[in-house]
Protein backbone atom coordinates (compact mmCIF):
# COMPACT_ATOMS: atom_id res chain seq x y z
CA UNK A 1 0.00 0.00 0.00
CA UNK A 2 1.45 3.37 -0.90
CA UNK A 3 0.81 6.42 1.28
CA UNK A 4 -2.48 7.70 -0.11
CA UNK A 5 -5.39 9.79 1.13
CA UNK A 6 -7.96 6.98 0.80
CA UNK A 7 -7.68 3.30 1.63
CA UNK A 8 -6.42 0.68 -0.88
CA UNK A 9 -9.87 0.02 -2.31
CA UNK A 10 -12.35 2.08 -4.36
CA UNK A 11 -14.93 4.22 -2.62
CA UNK A 12 -18.30 2.61 -3.41
CA UNK A 13 -21.25 3.75 -1.30
CA UNK A 14 -23.39 0.90 0.03
CA UNK A 15 -26.28 2.16 -2.11
CA UNK A 16 -24.43 1.51 -5.38
CA UNK A 17 -23.13 -2.07 -5.10
CA UNK A 18 -24.10 -5.35 -6.74
CA UNK A 19 -26.67 -7.18 -4.63
CA UNK A 20 -26.45 -10.76 -3.42
CA UNK A 21 -27.64 -13.12 -0.70
CA UNK A 22 -25.89 -15.41 1.70
CA UNK A 23 -26.58 -19.15 1.44
CA UNK A 24 -30.24 -20.17 1.62
CA UNK A 25 -31.36 -16.57 1.22
CA UNK A 26 -29.42 -15.50 4.30
CA UNK A 27 -29.62 -11.81 5.18
CA UNK A 28 -26.85 -11.51 7.76
CA UNK A 29 -23.62 -13.49 7.87
CA UNK A 30 -22.49 -13.53 11.47
CA UNK A 31 -18.94 -14.36 12.36
CA UNK A 32 -18.30 -14.81 16.04
CA UNK A 33 -14.74 -13.85 16.72
CA UNK A 34 -12.91 -15.23 19.74
CA UNK A 35 -9.65 -13.41 20.47
CA UNK A 36 -7.02 -15.78 21.83
CA UNK A 37 -4.52 -13.22 23.02
CA UNK A 38 -1.21 -13.42 24.80
CA UNK A 39 0.53 -10.69 26.76
CA UNK A 40 4.08 -11.48 27.90
CA UNK A 41 4.38 -10.99 31.66
CA UNK A 42 7.84 -9.44 31.27
CA UNK A 43 6.62 -6.63 29.00
CA UNK A 44 4.31 -3.66 29.62
CA UNK A 45 0.68 -4.59 29.08
CA UNK A 46 -1.50 -2.24 26.96
CA UNK A 47 -3.93 -0.13 29.05
CA UNK A 48 -1.82 -0.83 32.14
CA UNK A 49 0.64 1.13 34.24
CA UNK A 50 3.38 0.87 31.63
CA UNK A 51 5.64 -0.72 34.27
CA UNK A 52 6.90 -4.31 34.51
CA UNK A 53 5.57 -6.37 36.17
CA UNK A 54 1.99 -5.11 35.97
CA UNK A 55 0.32 -7.79 38.02
CA UNK A 56 -3.32 -6.64 38.01
CA UNK A 57 -3.46 -5.76 34.30
CA UNK A 58 -1.63 -8.89 33.22
CA UNK A 59 -3.44 -11.30 35.50
CA UNK A 60 -6.82 -9.93 34.53
CA UNK A 61 -6.03 -10.94 30.96
CA UNK A 62 -4.58 -14.27 32.00
CA UNK A 63 -7.99 -15.09 33.54
CA UNK A 64 -9.30 -15.32 30.01
CA UNK A 65 -6.94 -18.14 29.07
CA UNK A 66 -7.30 -20.02 32.33
CA UNK A 67 -11.08 -19.78 32.74
CA UNK A 68 -12.98 -17.31 30.59
CA UNK A 69 -12.43 -18.98 27.24
CA UNK A 70 -14.07 -22.18 28.46
CA UNK A 71 -17.28 -20.30 29.16
CA UNK A 72 -17.21 -19.08 25.56
CA UNK A 73 -16.68 -22.65 24.34
CA UNK A 74 -19.67 -23.82 26.40
CA UNK A 75 -22.02 -21.13 25.14
CA UNK A 76 -21.11 -21.48 21.48
CA UNK A 77 -21.31 -25.29 21.75
CA UNK A 78 -24.87 -24.96 23.02
CA UNK A 79 -25.85 -23.00 19.89
CA UNK A 80 -23.76 -25.10 17.52
CA UNK A 81 -21.71 -22.06 16.50
CA UNK A 82 -18.16 -22.37 15.18
CA UNK A 83 -16.13 -19.27 15.95
CA UNK A 84 -13.19 -17.72 14.15
CA UNK A 85 -10.20 -17.35 16.44
CA UNK A 86 -7.76 -14.45 16.13
CA UNK A 87 -4.64 -16.04 17.53
CA UNK A 88 -1.50 -14.32 18.83
CA UNK A 89 1.24 -16.81 17.93
CA UNK A 90 2.84 -16.43 21.39
CA UNK A 91 -0.32 -18.07 22.68
CA UNK A 92 0.80 -21.28 20.95
CA UNK A 93 3.85 -21.50 23.22
CA UNK A 94 1.86 -21.34 26.45
CA UNK A 95 -1.75 -22.41 25.81
CA UNK A 96 -1.78 -25.24 23.27
CA UNK A 97 -4.54 -26.86 25.33
CA UNK A 98 -6.89 -23.96 24.54
CA UNK A 99 -6.01 -24.07 20.85
CA UNK A 100 -6.71 -27.82 20.83
CA UNK A 101 -10.22 -27.14 22.13
CA UNK A 102 -10.82 -24.80 19.21
CA UNK A 103 -9.43 -27.30 16.71
CA UNK A 104 -11.61 -30.05 18.16
CA UNK A 105 -14.61 -27.85 17.31
CA UNK A 106 -13.36 -27.11 13.79
CA UNK A 107 -13.13 -23.41 14.53
CA UNK A 108 -11.17 -21.36 12.02
CA UNK A 109 -7.89 -19.76 13.07
CA UNK A 110 -6.69 -16.35 11.85
CA UNK A 111 -3.32 -14.70 12.33
CA UNK A 112 -3.21 -11.93 14.94
CA UNK A 113 0.45 -11.01 15.26
CA UNK A 114 2.86 -12.46 17.78
CA UNK A 115 1.54 -10.90 20.97
CA UNK A 116 -1.13 -8.34 21.79
CA UNK A 117 1.43 -6.17 23.50
CA UNK A 118 2.93 -5.09 20.18
CA UNK A 119 0.87 -3.74 17.30
CA UNK A 120 2.29 -3.78 13.76
CA UNK A 121 3.06 -0.05 13.83
CA UNK A 122 5.01 -0.52 17.07
CA UNK A 123 7.37 -3.13 15.57
CA UNK A 124 10.60 -1.72 14.09
CA UNK A 125 9.91 -1.48 10.33
CA UNK A 126 12.78 -3.80 9.48
CA UNK A 127 11.26 -6.46 11.76
CA UNK A 128 7.64 -6.38 10.57
CA UNK A 129 8.00 -8.84 7.72
CA UNK A 130 9.73 -11.37 9.97
CA UNK A 131 7.09 -10.91 12.68
CA UNK A 132 4.29 -11.65 10.23
CA UNK A 133 6.10 -14.62 8.72
CA UNK A 134 7.06 -16.13 12.07
CA UNK A 135 3.62 -15.69 13.61
CA UNK A 136 1.93 -17.48 10.69
CA UNK A 137 4.55 -20.25 10.67
CA UNK A 138 4.13 -20.76 14.41
CA UNK A 139 0.36 -21.03 14.08
CA UNK A 140 0.73 -23.51 11.24
CA UNK A 141 3.00 -25.63 13.42
CA UNK A 142 0.49 -25.51 16.25
CA UNK A 143 -2.69 -26.12 14.27
CA UNK A 144 -1.53 -28.03 11.19
CA UNK A 145 -3.04 -25.42 8.87
CA UNK A 146 -1.88 -22.08 7.55
CA UNK A 147 -4.24 -19.22 8.45
CA UNK A 148 -6.11 -17.68 5.53
CA UNK A 149 -7.10 -14.54 7.39
CA UNK A 150 -5.39 -11.87 9.47
CA UNK A 151 -6.30 -9.16 11.92
CA UNK A 152 -3.49 -7.10 13.43
CA UNK A 153 -3.35 -6.47 17.17
CA UNK A 154 -5.44 -3.34 17.65
CA UNK A 155 -6.25 -3.58 13.91
CA UNK A 156 -3.11 -1.58 13.19
CA UNK A 157 -1.13 -1.79 9.96
CA UNK A 158 1.80 0.00 8.40
CA UNK A 159 1.99 1.00 4.73
CA UNK A 160 3.76 -2.35 4.13
CA UNK A 161 1.55 -4.74 6.07
CA UNK A 162 -0.85 -5.69 3.28
CA UNK A 163 1.99 -6.43 0.87
CA UNK A 164 3.72 -8.63 3.46
CA UNK A 165 0.45 -10.44 4.20
CA UNK A 166 -0.26 -11.06 0.52
CA UNK A 167 3.25 -12.46 0.07
CA UNK A 168 2.56 -14.86 2.93
CA UNK A 169 -0.61 -16.13 1.26
CA UNK A 170 -3.12 -14.35 3.46
CA UNK A 171 -6.45 -14.03 1.63
CA UNK A 172 -8.50 -11.75 3.86
CA UNK A 173 -7.99 -9.09 6.51
CA UNK A 174 -10.24 -7.68 9.20
CA UNK A 175 -8.39 -4.46 10.07
CA UNK A 176 -10.58 -2.09 8.03
CA UNK A 177 -13.59 -1.37 10.21
CA UNK A 178 -15.41 0.70 7.61
CA UNK A 179 -18.25 -1.38 6.25
CA UNK A 180 -21.07 -3.87 6.71
CA UNK A 181 -20.08 -5.79 3.58
CA UNK A 182 -16.94 -7.36 2.18
CA UNK A 183 -14.95 -5.63 -0.52
CA UNK A 184 -11.72 -6.29 -2.41
CA UNK A 185 -8.48 -4.63 -1.23
CA UNK A 186 -5.43 -3.94 -3.36
CA UNK A 187 -2.23 -5.49 -1.98
CA UNK A 188 0.39 -4.88 -4.64
CA UNK A 189 -0.46 -7.19 -7.55
CA UNK A 190 -2.91 -9.19 -5.51
CA UNK A 191 -6.41 -8.57 -4.22
CA UNK A 192 -7.35 -9.55 -0.70
CA UNK A 193 -10.82 -9.47 0.76
CA UNK A 194 -11.70 -7.00 3.50
CA UNK A 195 -13.95 -8.83 5.95
CA UNK A 196 -15.71 -6.21 7.98
CA UNK A 197 -15.03 -6.08 11.65
CA UNK A 198 -16.84 -2.76 11.66
CA UNK A 199 -18.21 -0.78 14.53
CA UNK A 200 -19.71 -4.07 15.49
CA UNK A 201 -20.57 -5.42 18.91
CA UNK A 202 -17.16 -5.73 20.53
CA UNK A 203 -17.13 -6.79 24.15
CA UNK A 204 -13.96 -4.95 25.14
CA UNK A 205 -15.15 -1.64 23.68
CA UNK A 206 -18.58 -2.11 25.22
CA UNK A 207 -17.46 -3.01 28.72
CA UNK A 208 -14.17 -1.18 29.17
CA UNK A 209 -14.67 1.93 27.03
CA UNK A 210 -18.40 2.51 27.00
CA UNK A 211 -18.87 1.05 30.51
CA UNK A 212 -21.94 -0.89 29.43
CA UNK A 213 -23.73 -3.35 31.67
CA UNK A 214 -24.22 -6.91 30.40
CA UNK A 215 -27.82 -6.03 29.50
CA UNK A 216 -26.55 -3.03 27.51
CA UNK A 217 -24.19 -5.31 25.57
CA UNK A 218 -26.91 -7.87 24.84
CA UNK A 219 -29.08 -5.04 23.48
CA UNK A 220 -26.16 -3.70 21.44
CA UNK A 221 -25.86 -7.10 19.74
CA UNK A 222 -29.57 -7.55 19.14
CA UNK A 223 -30.17 -3.96 17.95
CA UNK A 224 -27.21 -4.28 15.60
CA UNK A 225 -28.55 -7.58 14.30
CA UNK A 226 -32.09 -6.27 13.86
CA UNK A 227 -31.02 -3.36 11.66
CA UNK A 228 -28.69 -5.49 9.51
CA UNK A 229 -31.41 -8.15 9.24
CA UNK A 230 -33.82 -5.50 7.96
CA UNK A 231 -31.26 -4.20 5.45
CA UNK A 232 -30.05 -7.68 4.50
CA UNK A 233 -33.39 -8.31 2.81
CA UNK A 234 -32.05 -6.47 -0.22
CA UNK A 235 -28.37 -7.46 -0.06
CA UNK A 236 -26.43 -9.56 2.41
CA UNK A 237 -24.76 -7.87 5.36
CA UNK A 238 -21.94 -9.03 7.65
CA UNK A 239 -21.92 -8.79 11.43
CA UNK A 240 -19.14 -9.59 13.87
CA UNK A 241 -19.59 -10.46 17.51
CA UNK A 242 -16.11 -9.89 18.96
CA UNK A 243 -15.38 -11.71 22.19
CA UNK A 244 -12.40 -11.50 24.51
CA UNK A 245 -12.22 -14.31 27.05
CA UNK A 246 -11.03 -12.01 29.81
CA UNK A 247 -13.97 -9.64 29.17
CA UNK A 248 -17.12 -11.59 28.27
CA UNK A 249 -15.84 -14.73 30.03
CA UNK A 250 -16.44 -13.33 33.50
CA UNK A 251 -19.22 -14.98 35.48
CA UNK A 252 -21.34 -11.82 35.64
CA UNK A 253 -21.14 -11.18 31.91
CA UNK A 254 -21.34 -14.51 30.10
CA UNK A 255 -25.13 -14.73 30.42
CA UNK A 256 -25.69 -11.72 28.18
CA UNK A 257 -24.12 -13.61 25.28
CA UNK A 258 -26.76 -16.31 25.61
CA UNK A 259 -29.48 -13.67 25.77
CA UNK A 260 -28.26 -12.10 22.53
CA UNK A 261 -27.87 -15.42 20.73
CA UNK A 262 -31.39 -16.50 21.78
CA UNK A 263 -32.71 -13.44 19.95
CA UNK A 264 -30.66 -14.01 16.81
CA UNK A 265 -31.40 -17.72 16.42
CA UNK A 266 -35.11 -16.98 16.61
CA UNK A 267 -34.84 -15.22 13.21
CA UNK A 268 -34.64 -16.72 9.75
CA UNK A 269 -31.85 -15.40 7.59
CA UNK A 270 -29.05 -15.48 10.17
CA UNK A 271 -26.09 -17.43 8.80
CA UNK A 272 -23.42 -18.21 11.41
CA UNK A 273 -20.19 -18.79 9.54
CA UNK A 274 -16.43 -18.54 9.90
CA UNK A 275 -14.43 -15.76 8.30
CA UNK A 276 -13.17 -18.02 5.52
CA UNK A 277 -16.67 -19.29 4.72
CA UNK A 278 -18.00 -15.73 4.39
CA UNK A 279 -15.09 -14.72 2.18
CA UNK A 280 -15.51 -17.79 -0.04
CA UNK A 281 -19.19 -17.11 -0.56
CA UNK A 282 -18.51 -13.44 -1.31
CA UNK A 283 -15.90 -14.36 -3.91
CA UNK A 284 -18.21 -16.92 -5.53
CA UNK A 285 -21.21 -14.60 -5.52
CA UNK A 286 -20.11 -12.50 -8.48
CA UNK A 287 -21.05 -9.44 -6.43
CA UNK A 288 -17.48 -8.44 -5.71
CA UNK A 289 -16.29 -4.86 -6.03
Amino acid at each position, binding site marked *: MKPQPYGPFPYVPITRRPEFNWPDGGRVAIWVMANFEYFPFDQPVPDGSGLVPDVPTWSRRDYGNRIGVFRIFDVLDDYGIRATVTLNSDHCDVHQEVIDEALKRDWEIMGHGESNSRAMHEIPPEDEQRAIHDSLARIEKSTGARPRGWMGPGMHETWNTLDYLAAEGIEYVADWI*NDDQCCLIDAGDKKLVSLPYG*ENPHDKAAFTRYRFTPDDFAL*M*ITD*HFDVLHREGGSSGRVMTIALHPFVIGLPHRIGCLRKALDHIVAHDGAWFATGGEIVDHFLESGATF
Partner: protein
Amino acid sequence: MKPEFYGPFAYTSIRNRPRIKWPNGARIALWVIPCLEHFALDQPMPEGTRKVPDIPTWSKRDYGNRVGIFRIIDALDRHGIRGTAAVNSDLCDAHPEIMEEVLKRKWGVIAHGESNSRFLNRMEPAEEQRAIHDALARIEKSTGTRPRGWMGPGMQQTANTMEYLAAEGIEYVADWLNDDQPYMIGVGNERLVALPYGGETHDKGVFMRLFFTPAQYQKMITDQFDVLYREGAESGRVMALQLHPYVIGVPHRIQALERVLEHICSHDDVWFATGDEIVDHYLDSGATF
Protein backbone atom coordinates in the same frame (compact mmCIF):
# COMPACT_ATOMS: atom_id res chain seq x y z
CA MET B 1 -12.11 39.44 17.10
CA LYS B 2 -10.11 41.22 19.77
CA PRO B 3 -9.18 39.43 22.97
CA GLU B 4 -11.94 40.68 25.25
CA PHE B 5 -13.34 39.84 28.62
CA TYR B 6 -16.62 38.63 27.04
CA GLY B 7 -17.40 37.22 23.59
CA PRO B 8 -17.81 39.50 20.53
CA PHE B 9 -21.51 40.11 21.17
CA ALA B 10 -23.73 41.79 23.73
CA TYR B 11 -24.71 39.82 26.79
CA THR B 12 -28.47 39.39 26.86
CA SER B 13 -30.30 37.03 29.15
CA ILE B 14 -33.03 34.77 27.82
CA ARG B 15 -35.48 36.73 30.02
CA ASN B 16 -34.78 40.07 28.47
CA ARG B 17 -35.07 39.74 24.70
CA PRO B 18 -37.59 40.58 21.99
CA ARG B 19 -39.98 37.70 21.42
CA ILE B 20 -39.09 35.44 18.48
CA LYS B 21 -42.00 34.08 16.47
CA TRP B 22 -41.35 31.23 14.05
CA PRO B 23 -43.58 30.64 11.02
CA ASN B 24 -47.10 29.34 11.68
CA GLY B 25 -46.76 29.75 15.43
CA ALA B 26 -44.05 27.10 15.68
CA ARG B 27 -42.37 26.89 19.06
CA ILE B 28 -39.13 25.31 17.86
CA ALA B 29 -37.07 25.79 14.74
CA LEU B 30 -35.31 22.47 14.40
CA TRP B 31 -32.29 22.09 12.16
CA VAL B 32 -30.76 18.67 11.58
CA ILE B 33 -27.05 18.75 10.83
CA PRO B 34 -25.43 15.64 9.32
CA CYS B 35 -21.67 16.26 9.40
CA LEU B 36 -20.05 15.16 6.13
CA GLU B 37 -16.44 14.83 7.13
CA HIS B 38 -13.30 13.76 5.37
CA PHE B 39 -10.07 12.53 6.87
CA ALA B 40 -7.01 11.68 4.82
CA LEU B 41 -5.40 8.29 5.51
CA ASP B 42 -1.95 9.78 4.91
CA GLN B 43 -2.34 12.49 7.58
CA PRO B 44 -2.53 12.15 11.37
CA MET B 45 -6.03 11.48 12.61
CA PRO B 46 -7.43 13.56 15.43
CA GLU B 47 -7.82 11.34 18.52
CA GLY B 48 -5.84 8.45 17.07
CA THR B 49 -2.34 7.16 17.66
CA ARG B 50 -1.06 10.25 15.77
CA LYS B 51 0.90 7.82 13.61
CA VAL B 52 0.29 7.44 9.91
CA PRO B 53 -1.47 5.31 8.77
CA ASP B 54 -3.88 4.83 11.67
CA ILE B 55 -6.11 2.15 10.19
CA PRO B 56 -8.67 1.64 12.99
CA THR B 57 -9.21 5.37 13.68
CA TRP B 58 -9.42 6.28 10.00
CA SER B 59 -11.53 3.36 8.86
CA LYS B 60 -14.04 3.89 11.66
CA ARG B 61 -14.75 7.34 10.22
CA ASP B 62 -14.73 6.05 6.67
CA TYR B 63 -17.65 3.81 7.72
CA GLY B 64 -19.73 6.95 7.96
CA ASN B 65 -19.17 7.84 4.31
CA ARG B 66 -19.55 4.30 2.96
CA VAL B 67 -22.54 3.18 4.99
CA GLY B 68 -23.63 5.35 7.93
CA ILE B 69 -24.71 8.48 6.06
CA PHE B 70 -27.25 6.49 4.06
CA ARG B 71 -28.99 5.39 7.23
CA ILE B 72 -29.29 9.02 8.31
CA ILE B 73 -30.59 9.98 4.86
CA ASP B 74 -33.20 7.20 5.02
CA ALA B 75 -34.33 8.23 8.51
CA LEU B 76 -34.75 11.86 7.46
CA ASP B 77 -36.42 10.94 4.17
CA ARG B 78 -39.02 8.90 6.05
CA HIS B 79 -40.18 12.07 7.80
CA GLY B 80 -39.66 14.41 4.88
CA ILE B 81 -36.96 16.32 6.75
CA ARG B 82 -34.30 18.25 4.86
CA GLY B 83 -30.96 18.30 6.62
CA THR B 84 -28.34 21.02 6.66
CA ALA B 85 -25.14 19.23 5.74
CA ALA B 86 -21.96 20.56 7.37
CA VAL B 87 -19.49 19.75 4.60
CA ASN B 88 -15.70 19.40 4.70
CA SER B 89 -14.82 20.63 1.21
CA ASP B 90 -12.36 17.73 0.71
CA LEU B 91 -15.41 15.46 0.70
CA CYS B 92 -16.67 17.13 -2.49
CA ASP B 93 -13.68 15.62 -4.31
CA ALA B 94 -13.49 12.34 -2.44
CA HIS B 95 -17.20 11.43 -2.34
CA PRO B 96 -19.23 13.36 -4.92
CA GLU B 97 -21.83 10.58 -4.66
CA ILE B 98 -22.79 11.84 -1.20
CA MET B 99 -23.09 15.43 -2.43
CA GLU B 100 -25.41 14.16 -5.19
CA GLU B 101 -27.76 12.80 -2.53
CA VAL B 102 -27.63 16.11 -0.65
CA LEU B 103 -28.44 18.14 -3.76
CA LYS B 104 -31.18 15.77 -4.93
CA ARG B 105 -33.00 16.39 -1.65
CA LYS B 106 -32.38 20.16 -1.63
CA TRP B 107 -30.75 20.01 1.77
CA GLY B 108 -29.08 23.10 3.14
CA VAL B 109 -25.28 23.20 3.15
CA ILE B 110 -22.92 24.98 5.52
CA ALA B 111 -19.17 24.98 5.17
CA HIS B 112 -17.20 22.91 7.68
CA GLY B 113 -13.64 23.69 6.67
CA GLU B 114 -11.56 21.63 4.27
CA SER B 115 -11.01 18.51 6.36
CA ASN B 116 -11.68 17.40 9.90
CA SER B 117 -8.00 16.52 10.21
CA ARG B 118 -7.10 20.24 10.14
CA PHE B 119 -8.44 22.67 12.71
CA LEU B 120 -8.22 26.42 12.16
CA ASN B 121 -6.59 27.01 15.52
CA ARG B 122 -3.60 24.91 14.47
CA MET B 123 -2.93 27.10 11.40
CA GLU B 124 -0.92 30.27 10.87
CA PRO B 125 -3.08 33.27 9.85
CA ALA B 126 -2.30 33.21 6.13
CA GLU B 127 -2.97 29.47 5.98
CA GLU B 128 -6.23 29.91 7.86
CA GLN B 129 -7.42 32.62 5.50
CA ARG B 130 -6.57 30.46 2.50
CA ALA B 131 -8.27 27.39 4.04
CA ILE B 132 -11.50 29.31 4.62
CA HIS B 133 -11.44 30.83 1.14
CA ASP B 134 -10.69 27.53 -0.60
CA ALA B 135 -13.27 25.56 1.38
CA LEU B 136 -16.03 27.96 0.40
CA ALA B 137 -14.92 28.06 -3.24
CA ARG B 138 -14.76 24.27 -3.48
CA ILE B 139 -18.21 23.77 -1.98
CA GLU B 140 -19.64 26.43 -4.27
CA LYS B 141 -18.18 24.57 -7.24
CA SER B 142 -19.79 21.33 -6.06
CA THR B 143 -23.23 22.67 -5.19
CA GLY B 144 -23.58 25.71 -7.43
CA THR B 145 -24.30 27.89 -4.39
CA ARG B 146 -21.93 29.68 -2.09
CA PRO B 147 -22.46 28.57 1.52
CA ARG B 148 -23.87 31.31 3.74
CA GLY B 149 -23.13 29.51 6.98
CA TRP B 150 -19.99 28.14 8.61
CA MET B 151 -19.09 25.70 11.34
CA GLY B 152 -15.41 25.12 11.95
CA PRO B 153 -13.93 21.63 12.35
CA GLY B 154 -14.07 21.02 16.09
CA MET B 155 -15.95 24.36 16.27
CA GLN B 156 -12.52 25.92 16.72
CA GLN B 157 -11.69 29.52 15.86
CA THR B 158 -8.72 31.84 16.13
CA ALA B 159 -8.77 35.54 16.95
CA ASN B 160 -9.05 36.20 13.19
CA THR B 161 -11.64 33.65 12.11
CA MET B 162 -14.71 35.84 12.39
CA GLU B 163 -13.06 38.61 10.32
CA TYR B 164 -11.96 36.15 7.64
CA LEU B 165 -15.46 34.63 7.50
CA ALA B 166 -17.14 38.03 7.26
CA ALA B 167 -14.77 39.04 4.47
CA GLU B 168 -15.76 35.88 2.56
CA GLY B 169 -19.45 36.77 2.85
CA ILE B 170 -20.40 34.28 5.54
CA GLU B 171 -23.64 35.39 7.22
CA TYR B 172 -23.95 32.96 10.12
CA VAL B 173 -21.78 30.70 12.25
CA ALA B 174 -22.52 27.67 14.42
CA ASP B 175 -19.38 27.59 16.56
CA TRP B 176 -20.87 29.39 19.58
CA LEU B 177 -22.57 26.88 21.85
CA ASN B 178 -23.96 29.34 24.37
CA ASP B 179 -27.65 29.85 23.56
CA ASP B 180 -31.01 28.38 22.54
CA GLN B 181 -31.82 31.34 20.30
CA PRO B 182 -29.95 33.08 17.48
CA TYR B 183 -28.21 36.37 18.26
CA MET B 184 -26.05 38.91 16.45
CA ILE B 185 -22.24 39.04 16.54
CA GLY B 186 -20.41 42.28 15.65
CA VAL B 187 -17.47 41.66 13.30
CA GLY B 188 -15.90 44.99 12.33
CA ASN B 189 -18.62 46.74 10.38
CA GLU B 190 -20.49 43.52 9.70
CA ARG B 191 -22.99 41.65 11.83
CA LEU B 192 -23.17 37.89 11.61
CA VAL B 193 -25.77 35.62 13.21
CA ALA B 194 -24.79 33.01 15.76
CA LEU B 195 -27.09 30.05 15.14
CA PRO B 196 -27.31 27.62 18.06
CA TYR B 197 -25.63 24.31 17.41
CA GLY B 198 -26.05 22.96 20.93
CA GLY B 199 -22.79 21.37 22.01
CA GLU B 200 -24.12 19.17 24.79
CA THR B 201 -26.37 16.94 22.69
CA HIS B 202 -23.85 16.33 19.94
CA ASP B 203 -23.94 12.59 19.10
CA LYS B 204 -20.19 12.25 19.08
CA GLY B 205 -19.80 13.70 22.56
CA VAL B 206 -22.73 11.73 23.93
CA PHE B 207 -21.62 8.35 22.57
CA MET B 208 -17.84 8.76 22.53
CA ARG B 209 -17.20 10.83 25.66
CA LEU B 210 -20.20 10.26 27.89
CA PHE B 211 -20.50 6.68 26.63
CA PHE B 212 -24.28 6.77 26.69
CA THR B 213 -26.29 3.80 25.49
CA PRO B 214 -28.68 4.44 22.58
CA ALA B 215 -31.59 4.44 25.06
CA GLN B 216 -29.87 7.11 27.14
CA TYR B 217 -29.21 9.19 24.02
CA GLN B 218 -32.86 8.86 23.01
CA LYS B 219 -33.99 10.07 26.44
CA MET B 220 -31.53 12.93 26.44
CA ILE B 221 -32.65 14.25 23.07
CA THR B 222 -36.37 13.79 23.68
CA ASP B 223 -36.05 15.48 27.10
CA GLN B 224 -34.08 18.30 25.44
CA PHE B 225 -36.82 18.68 22.85
CA ASP B 226 -39.64 18.55 25.41
CA VAL B 227 -38.22 21.39 27.51
CA LEU B 228 -37.42 23.62 24.52
CA TYR B 229 -40.89 22.90 23.14
CA ARG B 230 -42.48 24.01 26.41
CA GLU B 231 -40.32 27.15 26.56
CA GLY B 232 -40.91 27.87 22.88
CA ALA B 233 -44.53 28.78 23.65
CA GLU B 234 -43.27 32.01 25.16
CA SER B 235 -40.54 32.79 22.58
CA GLY B 236 -39.26 30.66 19.71
CA ARG B 237 -36.36 28.36 20.42
CA VAL B 238 -33.83 26.71 18.12
CA MET B 239 -32.85 23.10 18.54
CA ALA B 240 -30.00 21.46 16.64
CA LEU B 241 -29.76 17.72 16.03
CA GLN B 242 -26.11 16.99 15.25
CA LEU B 243 -25.43 13.72 13.52
CA HIS B 244 -22.11 12.08 12.66
CA PRO B 245 -22.57 9.25 10.18
CA TYR B 246 -19.86 7.11 11.75
CA VAL B 247 -21.39 7.55 15.22
CA ILE B 248 -25.20 7.48 15.05
CA GLY B 249 -25.17 5.79 11.64
CA VAL B 250 -24.00 2.40 12.95
CA PRO B 251 -26.56 -0.41 13.19
CA HIS B 252 -26.70 -0.55 16.96
CA ARG B 253 -27.42 3.18 17.30
CA ILE B 254 -29.54 4.25 14.35
CA GLN B 255 -32.82 3.17 15.93
CA ALA B 256 -32.28 5.76 18.67
CA LEU B 257 -32.34 8.45 15.98
CA GLU B 258 -35.41 6.88 14.39
CA ARG B 259 -37.23 6.97 17.74
CA VAL B 260 -36.15 10.55 18.45
CA LEU B 261 -37.55 11.66 15.09
CA GLU B 262 -40.82 9.84 15.75
CA HIS B 263 -41.15 11.65 19.07
CA ILE B 264 -40.40 15.05 17.59
CA CYS B 265 -42.67 14.53 14.59
CA SER B 266 -45.57 13.60 16.86
CA HIS B 267 -45.70 17.29 17.93
CA ASP B 268 -47.50 19.96 15.91
CA ASP B 269 -45.61 23.18 16.42
CA VAL B 270 -42.20 22.23 15.10
CA TRP B 271 -40.68 24.03 12.14
CA PHE B 272 -38.14 21.79 10.38
CA ALA B 273 -35.85 24.19 8.55
CA THR B 274 -32.38 24.56 7.14
CA GLY B 275 -29.84 26.88 8.74
CA ASP B 276 -30.33 29.46 5.98
CA GLU B 277 -34.11 29.44 6.46
CA ILE B 278 -33.89 29.95 10.23
CA VAL B 279 -31.41 32.80 9.84
CA ASP B 280 -33.50 34.49 7.14
CA HIS B 281 -36.64 34.34 9.27
CA TYR B 282 -34.77 35.60 12.31
CA LEU B 283 -33.33 38.55 10.39
CA ASP B 284 -36.72 39.38 8.84
CA SER B 285 -38.47 39.14 12.18
CA GLY B 286 -37.19 42.37 13.65
CA ALA B 287 -36.60 40.50 16.90
CA THR B 288 -32.85 40.52 16.53
CA PHE B 289 -30.52 41.27 19.42
